[in-house]
């Protein structure tokens, strides 16, 4: 019988497995998964939230690092000439942003633009004819980047031939006349030698009868009503210009040598290629990643500072609300009864107060009287109502947990109120609080940019700027220079979407039971 085969085992066959060592449970090989680790594992699975977190990281790093690396400083005008430039970013030869706008050019204007490139490549115009034209079009300094086919446009009853072209807003400035001292002249000459970049170009003979606009340095060739002329002084059309080139109108001395300056009293009047002159004065090429705004300030740098303002403000509000809201909600929820009722009424009143009134009152009473900085006043105003959401969440959590058995047990063991609140109940609410604090950030950023857009608060100063102000400044240029407004607007939109997705991810990760609650 199988059952009974162990019935008669002799005693001596038994022996101890161990006698001297102590028996322990085996240590767990797997790592313990805590609350945050658990949340992180869940968060990782949500691809949209992870992507949002990456986007936020990039924006954050941008705000943090760009001011250190950018050659353009806040409050420093790039140059009055380089106002409203379009975004420009070249990586090697490929253009991510080409810094150009689409223009409709007639033949006359086209010649004028190509002439900038022609002269820039060949200062003394030694090349002639078609070769010169080709070089002008292909020049690094040529305003015309891409030239479209010609088309007939009807304008006020007349048929005009026009071409669509991508025209670089950086190169269209071309040449400028400047008044400089003799020392400066020598210094530019020395700089030219050192860097092998040409700044000074031949002066134009403004006394010539074929020089129609003595103030425009881009008309360096002989013209008649804006059209180039041939040797006989007869105006030539585009095809001929392409074949023959234009005739220069440089200032020459009696021997026929080209002059590079004209003495005017103690000053020299010179003609510079502005792009290179900028390099001489600033030490770098005029290239602006996101272009420049209406005042000639670098948008990329300003945006980094604007983002810093937003982050400082919103993180500040989030932290204050986190702490104050947690305390307030804890006291409400734990004590309940009359305390709760009274505190809830305060919340009700504050919560019903429109945010803009609070902001304006803080601005009028604290900021305008000099008791607080603009940012400080705004921070306080947001904090007045910002904590309410956190407080009510904490309160709900406290109501849920305060009557559970483990709290009763702890109380029986003699735990004091504070210990019960923050050691035993509070950790249950931590996920909720973090989530609500994260959701507070985008709403603060949005309110801040709205208020600064409306001019209710003025965060614009020498060392700070706000995205809202940038948008308000760009509003008037929306039709022609949309990038001034639309770039900050895009960044705000992107940031808002990312924050909301990130917040949703956090909420799902911390409270899996709430998943998709209000998606």
């Amino acid at each position, binding site marked *: 019988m199988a059952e009974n085969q162990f019935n008669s085992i002799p005693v001596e066959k038994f022996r101890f497995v161990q006698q001297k060592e102590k028996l322990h449970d085996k240590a767990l090989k797997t790592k313990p998964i805590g609350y945050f680790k658990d949340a992180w594992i869940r968060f990782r699975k949500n691809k949209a939230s992870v992507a949002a977190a990456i986007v936020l990281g990039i924006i954050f790093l941008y705000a943090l690092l760009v001011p250190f690396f950018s050659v353009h400083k806040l409050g420093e005008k790039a140059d009055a000439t380089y106002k409203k430039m379009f975004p420009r970013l070249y990586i090697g030869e490929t253009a991510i942003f080409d810094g150009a706008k689409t223009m409709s050019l007639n033949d006359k204007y086209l010649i004028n633009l190509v002439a900038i490139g022609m002269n820039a490549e060949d200062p003394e115009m030694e090349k002639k004819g078609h070769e010169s034209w080709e070089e002008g079009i292909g020049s690094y300094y040529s305003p015309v980047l891409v030239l479209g086919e010609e088309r007939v446009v009807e304008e006020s009853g007349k048929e005009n031939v026009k071409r669509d072209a991508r025209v670089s807003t950086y190169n269209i400035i071309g040449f400028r006349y400047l008044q400089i001292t003799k020392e400066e002249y020598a210094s530019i000459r020395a700089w030219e030698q050192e860097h092998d970049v040409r700044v000074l170009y031949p002066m134009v003979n403004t006394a010539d009868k074929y020089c129609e606009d003595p103030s425009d340095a881009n008309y360096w060739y002989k013209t008649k009503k804006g059209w180039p002329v041939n040797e006989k002084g007869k105006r030539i059309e585009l095809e001929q210009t392409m074949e023959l080139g234009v005739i220069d109108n440089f200032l020459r001395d009696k021997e026929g040598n080209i002059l590079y300056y004209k003495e005017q009293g103690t000053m020299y009047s010179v003609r510079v290629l502005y792009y290179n002159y900028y390099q001489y004065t600033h030490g770098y090429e005029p290239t602006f990643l996101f272009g420049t705004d209406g005042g000639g300030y670098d948008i990329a740098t300003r945006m980094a500072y604007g983002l810093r303002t937003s982050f400082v403000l919103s993180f500040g509000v989030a932290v204050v609300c986190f702490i104050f809201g947690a305390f307030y909600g804890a006291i409400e929820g734990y004590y309940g009864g009359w305390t709760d009722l009274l505190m809830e*009424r305060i919340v009700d009143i504050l919560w019903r107060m*429109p945010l*803009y009134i609070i902001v304006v009152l803080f601005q009028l009473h604290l900021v305008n009287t000099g008791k607080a900085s603009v940012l400080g006043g705004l921070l306080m105003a947001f904090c007045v109502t910002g904590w309410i959401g956190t407080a009510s969440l904490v309160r709900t959590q406290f109501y849920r947990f305060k009557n559970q058995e483990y709290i009763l047990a702890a109380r029986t063991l003699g735990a004091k109120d504070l210990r019960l609140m923050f050691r035993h109940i509070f950790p249950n609410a931590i996920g909720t609080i973090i989530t609500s604090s994260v959701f507070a950030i985008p709403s603060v950023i949005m309110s801040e940019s*709205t208020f600064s857009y409306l001019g209710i608060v003025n965060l614009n100063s020498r060392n700070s700027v706000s995205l809202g102000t940038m948008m308000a400044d760009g509003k008037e240029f929306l039709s022609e220079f949309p990038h001034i407004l639309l770039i900050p607007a895009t960044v705000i939109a992107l940031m808002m979407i990312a924050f*909301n*997705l990130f917040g949703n991810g956090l909420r799902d990760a911390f409270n899996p039971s709430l998943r998709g*609650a209000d998606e």
Partner: protein
Amino acid sequence: MRTFKYVLKRLLFLAITFFIILTITFCLIKMLQAEVPLGKQGQTELARRKALGWDKPILVQYGIYLRNLFTKFDIGTSLKVSYMTPVAEVIASRMPPTILVNVLSILLGLPLGIVLGIFAALKKNTWIDHVVSVVIVVFISVPSFVLAFFLQYFLSFKAGWFPLVMFSKSEAGGLFTWKMVYSLMLPIMASAFYEIAYFARTVRAELTEALTSDYMLLARTKGLTQSKAVIHHALKNAMVPILPVVIGTFLSIMGGSMVLERIFAIPGVGDLTLKALSTLDYDLFVGTAMFYTLIGLLAGIVTDLSYGFLDPRIKMGER
């Protein structure tokens, strides 16, 4: 009876809240020193202000304010934006454009939002649902004024479909004309996008819950087709919580979006508020602030009460 008591209690509390906020705003605004006008014009100006009681202590002024408010519904006089006009009149004259934009944006947003929400709920976890979810997240997160810029640039400047700002009354031949509606399309769209997303999200959540409920199972078991069951049972139940949301939304945006009114040059209450702020028109500031406060309070109470009236399962006044 309990319902009546509850409503009364809520109304009483609404009044208390309103007066506390009014007191705070009034006193804090009046505490600021009004600049003293100079010259001969200034003398008459000062005399006028004296007649309005501006030289008295703040609390006395507040007493006068309250007395006027209760006896003749007079909430002060505008000094800057619209000289020597009663504030109530100024605000009332700015209401029509704001209401027009809001009503139209709800008319556009509500059906679209509900349809989107229904689609998303019926096709849950398909690509339609995912697309709708993305649209919802985008429209809910992006501030309406940022959307307004994009609309202005692409639909007005680039495509030339809509005018950049609202037509004046003479241009459109009156406020309630088709031409005016056409000129208001951009602000309507800018505020409707948020509403679309908001309604779609609510409908989707409610309908998803209704579709998985027991009564739907019963309806299918007794032989109804899926579409019949959805229309007669799920939709009906899912729509109940939507109505309070609609009422609440309508009331809360009644004040209009200040920023949208500024962008599209709409002469509404939001625009008026901004003017009162920038010129520091004291009475008008208090007046507009109270207008917004009252709207917020009413929206809250109406939303809460309508839940109770529409859904008999919710017993009002219960804890």
